């Protein structure tokens, strides 16, 4: 194919661009395994589940269990704490969204959305402060629980209420609620 001075775009230019673009795509594709190897592997991804017997947890007490390497707060709230949690108007919350794994992320952070119907006294939450990942205080009887009676993070002073909602301090979000079901009235399965 003859080219002239009037036709600056040649067949050779096209081949150069096509070859370079193809090599670029190939190089980017080859890079992906190098990045993806760092992601959680199948063992870590396999959710795993834990069953927890709630019977020994008395009213007002709390226990911490481990699921996916994370602490899970299991708290048997007093009727007063439940009433207080229910009475909080949503527009007063710093984060108005119910951070429940499996929900769409649109539901408001009402106490109803954060607990299971018929089992309102149980609050099950991932015990990791949404600020920088510390474990808030408030599980043990003598712990500081902050102004809202829930949890108090010792690292940077975030305070959560009895429904695990952020009320004060630098944390941006409510405590996350893991996926769980009640197997019976005194037993839950997380995961």
């Amino acid at each position, binding site marked *: 194919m003859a080219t002239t001075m009037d036709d600056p775009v040649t067949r050779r230019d096209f081949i150069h661009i096509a070859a370079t673009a193809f090599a670029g795509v190939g190089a980017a594709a080859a890079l992906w395994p190098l990045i993806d190897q760092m992601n959680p592997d199948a063992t870590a991804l396999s959710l795993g589940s834990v069953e927890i017997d709630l019977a020994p947890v008395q009213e007002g007490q709390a226990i911490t269990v481990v699921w996916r390497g994370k602490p899970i707060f299991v708290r048997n709230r007093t009727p007063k704490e439940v009433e207080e949690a229910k009475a909080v108007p949503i527009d007063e919350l710093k984060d108005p969204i119910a951070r429940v794994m499996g929900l769409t992320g649109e539901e408001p952070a009402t106490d109803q959305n954060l607990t299971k119907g018929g089992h309102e006294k149980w609050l099950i939450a991932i015990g990791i402060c949404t600020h*920088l990942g510390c474990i808030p205080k408030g599980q043990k009887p003598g712990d500081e629980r902050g102004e809202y009676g829930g949890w108090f993070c010792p*690292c940077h002073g975030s305070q959560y209420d009895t429904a695990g909602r952020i009320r004060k301090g630098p944390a941006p979000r409510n405590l996350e609620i893991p996926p769980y079901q009640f197997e019976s009235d005194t037993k839950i399965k997380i995961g």
Partner: protein
Amino acid sequence: MAHQSNYQPKTAFTRWMDSRLPVIRMAYDTILDFPTPRNLNYMWTFGGILTFFLGLQIITGVILAMHYTADTSVAFDSIEYLMRNVNYGWLMRYTHAVGASMFFVAVYLHIFRGLYYGSYKAPREILWIIGVLIFLAMIATSFMGYSLVWGQMSFWAVTVITNLFSSLDSIVNGLGTAIVQWIWGDFSVSDATLNRLFSLHYLLPFVIAGLVGLHIWALHVPGNNNPIGVDLRDPKREAVPFHPYYTAKDLFALTAFLLLFAYFVFYLPDYLGHADNYIKANPLQTPPHIVPEWYFLPFYAILRAIPSKLGGVIAMFSSIGVLFFIPWLDTSSERSARYRPIYKWFFWLLAIACVALGYLGSKPPEGGYLVAARIFTAYYFIHFLIIMPIVGVIETPKPRPRTIADAIFKGGGQASGYAAQPAAAAAEKR
């Protein structure tokens, strides 16, 4: 002023080598013969001290890696074993741990030397930027090294710092969490995390060594700045060869610095660390009061001074990021703060702010501590973003020696066999 090579190969071998790979010439030109201003003070000795400490950290680090096991179940115990049983293991570990602290002592003095004498200004912008990159790599390396101990402070430092990236969730939902889990290789700080931290902790010092090579290369193109901030005009009169003059001076300063280092290694080895790091990592219990190593405290104070999570993270990274731009933020034509009557005060205010932030970073973020941290954080940024550009324009520099020769041969007498400038020239402005 990349200087002319004065190297003369003397033997048949060195002549043969010189025409094939002139490494001997390069070493001669950079280490032995390099023309260095005669008027450098002791603040110019930290470059050599830092190079020494980089070497020391690499040697002790390679040795420690021979005894360390990067596995969450035994990492902590492998270090206790090293301390108690391995021959001189305690010395290797304390040298490495205290060495990291001394590395930061020296680098902070080196950075403030550069800030005071305007060593970042043209034509040394690239030299300065490479220096900031080295500082960033040092931060990453020391953070990862601290995590390997796998004590309570190690574990929670990794947790808190890696969680900084989750602040991106407030920009794109899920992005921050995805990045954090990619860093962890799990849903929490785990065995996978410890292994990659170890791998990168071993890698980064060699990256630093490469950057140091570039730093020295970039230094040797314009040559050293000096306390009066004037370029060399007449190297024959104003400069001396690096060896033996500055090799001897640097070695003397290094020896003095090593006394301080040895005092800490042998008498206060744990003084700069935190007692909680002698408790094995426990993912279910956060220590009551998390603090980073002392050299990160000012940045930690900035992080906590901002009441928003993303804002705090941005402020903390910006506090280092802003350093990249100061060659252009400083509008003054005068390099050395010695001749800048207004800026000099602001410089010391900055130094006080940094020390104060360091103190506040070790205190809980509440009450007066938080208010003070906010004030000093504000000053830190105002200093670079507002004061530096404005003061450079409104300030009239004080008279300074026109040349280095004027500064060192004042009085008009003969010095070192060279004719000195008349005394009147010393007061003359450029």
